[in-house]
């Protein structure tokens, strides 16, 4: 992938062109955190760019993780995170985060539910 040789940012320029050079997301989003398009998101998305429209369509009625969003968009994680964080902050996507670092009660609950789920596979 050859870029304009003189730009010191090198090949970072092209992917982050989508976010107009912003590399810092407005909030953190874990790789596996899932998002669903809100009613507001469905209405507003026609006024946004191609990538946000793709995200809104992807997450309409079916939760997708940040990793899936990046994969479907064919963008690096960092870019997908900036876009998704925008949409979450703007109320276009509902973010579901599972804080499993914390209370071991929550962690145990999830472990047990996942265990049941795996046994049913």
């Amino acid at each position, binding site marked *: 992938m050859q870029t304009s040789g003189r730009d010191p940012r*090198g090949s970072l320029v092209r992917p982050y062109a989508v976010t107009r050079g912003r590399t810092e997301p407005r909030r953190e989003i874990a790789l596996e955190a899932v998002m669903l398009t809100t009613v507001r998101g469905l209405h507003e998305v026609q006024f946004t760019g191609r990538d946000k429209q793709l995200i809104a369509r992807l997450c309409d009625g079916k939760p997708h*993780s940040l990793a899936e969003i990046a*994969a479907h968009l064919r963008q690096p994680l960092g870019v997908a995170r900036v876009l998704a964080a925008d949409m979450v902050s703007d109320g276009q996507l509902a973010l579901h985060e*599972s804080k499993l670092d914390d209370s071991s009660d929550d962690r*145990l609950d999830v*472990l047990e539910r996942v265990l049941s789920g795996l046994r049913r596979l």
Partner: protein
Amino acid sequence: MDSAGSDRAASADGSITSAKIVVAGGFGVGKTTLVGAVSEIVPLTTEAMMTTASIGVDDASNTPGKNTTTVAMDFGRITMADDLILYLFGTPGQTRFWFMWDELIRGALGATVLVDTRRITDSFSAIDFFENRKLPYLVAVNHFDNTPRYELNEIRDALTVPEHVPLMRCDARHRESVKGVLIAVVEHAIAELHRERAAAAPAVAHSG
């Protein structure tokens, strides 16, 4: 017919829980195959970009496009209920991208290190990493055709894996085998959590 009644109750507030298990191991050991054997989606790949400067690569030539590199991870998904999704993330092939490994394990339920007995040293750094970060993990020895079969205790010795870490055989191509590995990871994580709790509980009659 709601056998998953307790699952529904957990989502009374409409929240969706997503969890992940990390699949580590050397390049070509079968991580993506393993994920693919149980994933409801064809394994996807996500990439993260990082600058080579942060891993100390000196590039005096200032060649365009040389400043960054991409780290790729394959992953899959298992939807267990309307409000419960399990993701399986394969680690990047390159073990030097530790920043990505940190992100991968953050909040993970546990991990499995997949081993190829022909390239056993490929597993060392993953095992060390999980030991250091105290993430519950187990070691799964992948089956490869036309490969000598070693006893599990021999493999354990070669890997210097502590006794409390489960070690099992698997065939990453086979759904039932992979299911067995994932169940073992979660059971081990539950056991570890109970051990932690027991250790933290105030001792009843502990003199001196």
